[in-house]
């Protein structure tokens, strides 16, 4: 990637917190949502967190196993260096402080957890106090991002397939011990769309640093949402419910909207939600109460005596920081710095077309036109491999009036397919910008054919002309088969109307 470095001062100049547009409350004016997200990321390592068994999705049950991740008596954990490296990289990408940390045992019984405790981190996590900036510019605080191990998987076997009927379960430990980074946000998210934007942004960061493939459908990225509501404008934190089993972005949005509304309904009928874990029921479109929290909240955390502290040296941290790729936020800011608006910038980065846009701009192309094409005309395969200089040439032809917008779009599509120069394609297609005299003749004929519309156009003020302007431009385009330049038509219309008055 050949992108000019952007200085920190330039970047911060574009981070304007106060002017950020926030998602309007879906709960009306009286209430607002308070949402915190907990995201588990399965790290893309060859082996597990503490065991030399393979970390691989979809293998035959109980084949990716080893005495260590089966928690067999006498076995001991040893930390996977790669998992620490990826965890630090992700922490740095989330602007966290990377610190000396301790592994702790979280004690609870569940059959898919081989040791009946999970090795996690408690009061001393690896990464603390960071933030993630959404494309809107809103910053969500990151409380911590700590390392832990995944559990195995239980499959219920029974007549109805539901968890509460008789029957039995089968346990597969292939996933047991897979390295996870648990990222815990501050309750800074205010709505379902913002929550989805958070997860999307997080996913793009995760993929960018190579920490994980970020696939929600394979469980590489698992999101739980802590949802509460409060009277709009207050700063209290009310009882929250943790929503689990959210397997897609769409479900996340739906689950949060449902849960927040449920809280509002409870408060408005004089009741209150109770703190609990709830499960998203995708089919029913609702959350259902899970385990009540009070009975097993004491995990008896204590420092795992089988493991020693991880204390990354400042040099190692800086080495990893230097190895980070350019992150999505910075990529957006580079576009914005050249004059792109934030929405277009987000789309460009989302489509991986920011490098192209910057290079085309460097080659002399107009940034506004470049971004318009990126946004509207380049959601196609192969767009990223466009030659930036040719792309810039196209934009220059268009800005100079040699091609209309419609013509440019067609030429661009051809360029993506064939890689040829825009002038050659335009010539082959017979695209030439119309002489303005010729265009004026066409426009006069249309005005003559539509006297009523023309009279109203002339009488109307600027605000009232919008629709009629569209009518006349459309007629011209139709008559010229799209070869007219819309801008020139608009100018001519204005001149003629002014002359008439």
């Amino acid at each position, binding site marked *: 990637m050949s992108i000019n470095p952007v200085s920190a001062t330039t970047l911060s100049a574009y981070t304007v917190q106060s002017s950020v547009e926030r998602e309007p409350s879906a709960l009306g004016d009286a209430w607002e949502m308070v949402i915190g997200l907990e995201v588990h990321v399965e790290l893309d390592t060859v082996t597990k967190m503490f065991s030399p068994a393979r970390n691989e999705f979809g293998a035959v049950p109980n084949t990716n196993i080893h*005495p260590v991740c*089966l*928690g*067999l*008596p*006498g*076995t*001991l*954990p*040893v*930390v996977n260096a790669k998992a620490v490296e990826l965890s630090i990289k992700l922490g740095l990408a989330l602007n966290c402080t990377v610190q000396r940390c301790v592994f702790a*045992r979280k*004690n609870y*019984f*569940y*059959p898919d957890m*081989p*040791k*009946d*405790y999970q090795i996690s981190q408690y009061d001393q996590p690896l990464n603390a106090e960071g933030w993630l900036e959404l494309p809107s510019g809103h910053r969500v605080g990151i409380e911590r991002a700590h390392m832990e191990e995944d559990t195995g998987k239980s499959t219920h076997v029974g007549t109805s397939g539901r968890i509460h009927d008789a029957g039995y*379960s089968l*346990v597969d430990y292939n996933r047991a011990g897979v390295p996870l980074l648990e990222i815990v946000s501050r309750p800074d998210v205010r709505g379902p769309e913002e929550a989805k934007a958070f997860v999307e942004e997080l996913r793009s960061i995760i993929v960018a640093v190579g920490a994980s493939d970020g696939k929600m459908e394979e469980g590489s990225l698992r999101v739980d949402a802590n949802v509460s509501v409060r009277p709009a404008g207050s700063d209290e934190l009310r009882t929250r419910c943790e929503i689990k089993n959210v397997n897609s972005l769409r479900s996340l949005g739906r689950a949060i909207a449902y849960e927040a509304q449920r809280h509002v309904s409870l408060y408005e009928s004089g009741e209150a939600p109770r703190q609990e874990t709830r499960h998203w029921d995708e089919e029913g479109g609702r959350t259902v109460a899970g385990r009540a929290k009070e009975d097993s*909240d*004491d995990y*008896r*955390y*204590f420092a795992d*005596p*089988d*493991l*020693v502290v991880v204390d990354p040296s400042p040099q190692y941290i800086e080495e990893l920081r230097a190895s980070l790729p350019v992150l999505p936020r910075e990529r957006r800011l580079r576009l914005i710095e050249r004059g792109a608006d934030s929405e277009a910038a987000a789309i460009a980065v989302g489509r991986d077309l920011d490098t192209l846009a910057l290079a085309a701009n460097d080659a002399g192309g107009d940034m506004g036109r470049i971004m318009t094409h990126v946004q509207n005309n380049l959601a196609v395969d192969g767009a990223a491999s466009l030659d930036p200089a040719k792309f810039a040439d196209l934009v220059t032809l268009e800005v100079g009036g040699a091609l209309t917008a419609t013509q440019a779009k067609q030429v661009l599509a051809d360029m993506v397919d064939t890689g040829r120069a825009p002038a050659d394609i335009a010539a082959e297609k017979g695209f030439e910008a119309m002489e303005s005299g010729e265009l004026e003749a066409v426009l006069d004929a249309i005005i003559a054919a539509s006297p009523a519309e023309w009279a109203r156009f002339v009488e109307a003020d600027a605000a009232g002309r919008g629709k009629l302007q569209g009518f006349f431009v459309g007629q011209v385009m139709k008559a010229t088969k799209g070869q007219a330049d819309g801008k020139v038509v608009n100018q001519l219309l204005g001149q003629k109307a002014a002359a008439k008055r």
Partner: protein
Amino acid sequence: MTVRGDTALELGAAIASGGTTSVAAVTEYLAAIDAREADIHAFNLVHAERALESAAMVDRRLAAGEKLGPLAGVPIALKDNMCTRGIPTTCSSKILKGWEPPYDATVVERLTAAGVVSVGKTNLDEFAMGSSTENSAFGPTRNPHDLSRVPGGSSGGSAAVVAAGFAPLALGSDTGGSIRQPAALCGVVGLKPTYGSVSRYGLIAFASSLDQIGPFSNDVADSAALFDLIAGHDPRDSTSIPKPHVPCLPAIGRGVEGMRVGLIKELMGDGEIEGFQPEVIAQTKAAAAALEAAGAIIEEVSVPSVVYGLSAYYLIAPAEASSNLARYDGVRYGQRVEGPSTAAMHTASRTAGFGPEVKRRIMLGTYALSAGYYDAVYGKAMRVRTLIIDDFARAYEKVDLLLSPTSPCVAFPIGDVADPLTMYLNDVCTIPSNLAGHPAISVPFGTGEADLPVGVQLLGPLLSEPTMFAAAAVLEAAAPSTKSAEVRA
């Protein structure tokens, strides 16, 4: 010719030189086991056929010219909390009945590589929780010196094996004295090495920050040789010391000329800690005198915080144990008692599978770690460890080694100590070394009440084993004669 009068090193030398064979040695020891094991019950399992096969293999390797080290072909017994692939490993608990580990502990791998031949798995207090080997689900082990008495514990089976002459070597594990106290009560040598010097991989955990594997033998030099074999860095154990092991065998014979040795004031029976038998104190003083006669400088040294050792230990060890023993849930291995749900199966399996001492410690440990008590209980105990380490550090500014009794008393009658707390007091001299991670060795030194063996303990700072072995050899040479040889015959 008989090999059972030889030390392990002598036997190893004889096998290496072709004077005898491993098969002959193992056969002779198996015969000794056959003769008296029914009385002593030192073993949970004797795998005679496998031992003979291994011995034959060692003989072939030696015949082929392979260099296997000084203990090749020598029989050994393993405490039944060390994993042996394909051989039942029970921790003397019903909950692990029938479990055959699919892997070998690191120490087992090292023994096998060096041609040391395992003859069986020895009895212990269930999950190493006890000081008498009475807490075994498979019945107590008896002290070869007096069958009505305990061998000590928790490595009572391994101590009894060596004392009874069932094998010249054994491995035990020591969490609060579980090698040294039974060594003292059975009149043999036992070393608790520096924490991290012997890999814990494959040792079924009791209390992870305290557990350490170590050797038993009749002879100090044999323990040094066995320790040299099993010690050294293991990448499978994160707490393993990443330094080359300094061999201890060469230290035997260095003597104690000019060495400074401190008698621990608080463990001489006239202070806050009570219950020491006068004969035990007398032998400890005699041991000090013997070192002095050999050129050491003896002084009394105070290590004040050792008085808190017992309390801290009985909070820390159960806390770690409560978590380490959570995995015995009936899902993957061991005993299962069926139930209508996983939770019911889990509770039923554990309730039926664990004995009373294990249950007591799980309850104690669960309490020590619980949310409202962590700081006042577990957290506090971890700070006491620091106090003890600091006190030892001050002592070692003045002296090279410390000396104390190993156990306050000689072997007591089976069934005599019913109260758990009284039983815990047996470990008062040994626990401080585990809390500090320091090495300590018990050496037989004369007899006490009822003509039973007394052991004295040498303690040293981290990685001071060579110095300790030098002094232990001096004590061994100076020790009053006992009937140990007779007991082994």
